[in-house]
């Protein structure tokens, strides 16, 4: 029974982080930009959504969608630091991530004033459930609310996936892909590749922020430290997804990334079953990621090894 509950939990968490992974898929896979600002834009989305909902009384769905723009702006800063000022990819991400730590604290302070919370680091509020507490979540009856949450999340994730897929098929999307693939070609086509890089990183962080907003709705709480480790989590999801599922025909990369996020979250949740105190959680998290990377390297090496062997045979 505990195993079953953990699975449901893992699925809920996985679908929430699927949005995060889809964002990082844009920056990491498409633009080849390991973006560390994700650790900052994730809680940023959460706090912006919380303020919009609790202080301004905006309904959950528009609040989540609006938090996208907060991430967009933060991502644009990372992009500009790298493209216009020549700061390395990793450092521009670190700078924005560090700056956002203060920004999110300052924003949370707006909530303490209203007495909604006593600390500026985290708080809980039933009113934050928004997206998952309305009539829709009770369609299947109160006892089945967990399943309904999964369905709402799934609809949300599929919508995000379709939007990203569609965007990548537009001329603008082609240019973003070309920028990550062969920057020189974009220049040859008479366009500034830097613009597309900034755009891509901004969009990626927009989705990351939206995932943060979804997260605060899912657990009806906001936590300033919720961003830590999100880069690793997102990268792991993207890498697992693409390594495992992209070999399946007719499965697009975005679907693979979603599945990767779900699988990784399930693994993490099962780890909690083992490590009930949660002391070694991050360590196990890191080890899991390392195993995945090693496995990924091994399999690709194995495949090329086999191909070599086959080629050798052909020569004989």
């Amino acid at each position: 029974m505990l195993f079953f509950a953990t699975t449901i939990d893992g699925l809920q968490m996985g679908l929430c982080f699927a949005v995060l992974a889809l964002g990082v898929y844009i920056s990491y896979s498409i633009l080849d930009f390991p973006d560390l600002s994700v650790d900052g834009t994730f809680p940023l989305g959460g706090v912006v959504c919380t303020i919009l909902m609790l202080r301004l009384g905006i309904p959950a769905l528009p609040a989540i969608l609006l938090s996208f723009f907060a991430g967009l702006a933060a991502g644009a800063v990372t992009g500009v630091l790298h493209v216009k000022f020549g700061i390395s990819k990793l450092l521009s991400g670190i700078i924005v991530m560090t700056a956002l730590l203060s920004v999110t604290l300052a924003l949370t302070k707006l909530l303490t004033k209203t007495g909604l919370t006593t600390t500026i680091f985290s708080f809980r509020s039933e009113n934050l459930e928004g997206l998952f507490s309305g009539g829709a979540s009770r369609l299947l009856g109160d006892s089945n609310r967990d399943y309904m949450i999964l369905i709402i999340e799934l609809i949300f994730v599929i919508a995000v996936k379709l939007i990203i897929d569609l965007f990548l098929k537009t001329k603008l999307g082609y240019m973003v892909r070309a920028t990550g693939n062969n920057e020189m070609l974009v220049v040859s086509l008479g366009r500034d590749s830097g613009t597309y890089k900034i755009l891509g990183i901004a969009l990626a962080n927009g989705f990351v922020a939206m995932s943060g907003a979804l997260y605060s709705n899912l657990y009806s709480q906001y936590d300033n430290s919720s961003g830590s480790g999100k880069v690793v989590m997102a990268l792991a999801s993207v890498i697992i997804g693409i390594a495992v599922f992209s070999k399946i025909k007719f499965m697009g990369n975005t679907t693979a990334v979603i599945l990767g996020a779900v699988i990784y979250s399930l693994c993490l949740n099962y780890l909690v079953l083992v490590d009930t105190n949660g002391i070694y959680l991050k360590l196990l998290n890191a080890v899991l990621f390392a195993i995945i990377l090693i496995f990924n390297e091994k399999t690709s090496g194995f495949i090329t090894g086999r191909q070599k062997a086959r080629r050798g045979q052909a020569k004989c």
Partner: protein
Amino acid sequence: MLELRGISKIYNPGTVTELCLFDDFSFKVADGECVSVVGSNGSGKTSMLNIICGSIPVSGGEVLIDGKNINSLREYKRYRMIGRVYQNPAAGTCPDMTILENMSLADNKGKRYGLSFGVNNSRKNYYKEQLSSLGLGLEDKLDAKLGALSGGQRQAVSLLMATLTPIDFLILDEHTAALDPRTAEIIMELTDKIVKEKKLTAIMVTHNLRYAVEYGTRLVMMDKGNIILDKSGKEKQDVKVEDILDIFNKISIECGN
């Protein structure tokens, strides 16, 4: 008309590795000319192309197009009138995108890259027609990723992409150097066909002396940042590979090799 006037280019100025490549270098290309440029390594051929395209800044002098100074024009803006094919077949295409997607990207050069669909299906037949002119059977592989093609096939697509939209200049930077002799021959013939069909002004840097002699309307030889041979028209037609080879050997002997 393209003109380099009094160009100087110093690499690593103010350091022990300072190298003055060009000192008061001038070069003119008239519209419709097809110039083959030869010269040993380090003679400044590729640097000249990079200066024209704005990939590297000049230390002094002017780059002019139709009499207008384009020194301050950024690289990507210059490429709106220039098409370039690189030595590396991978440089002119996107390996992770399909042939159709690559062609669509190139076809849109000079227009807006907005939120409309990347592939215009009504143009598909045009792309197929263009690809079939290569004679490599690529018109049936529209959905194949560029990265899965051979170097020669990729270079052929690069060439097609660089010349798909109207351009003023075609820059060929040793574009057959990485290909096997037979494929190089095919690409060279294709280049000649495209340049003649579209009446392009072209500058081709090559190490293949035979190509330099056989193709183009003008032959230029460079050495240590200077032009030491410049033949066009009737004179160019009379040049033989042996003549250039002789000059090449002379230069090398002067250098003490």
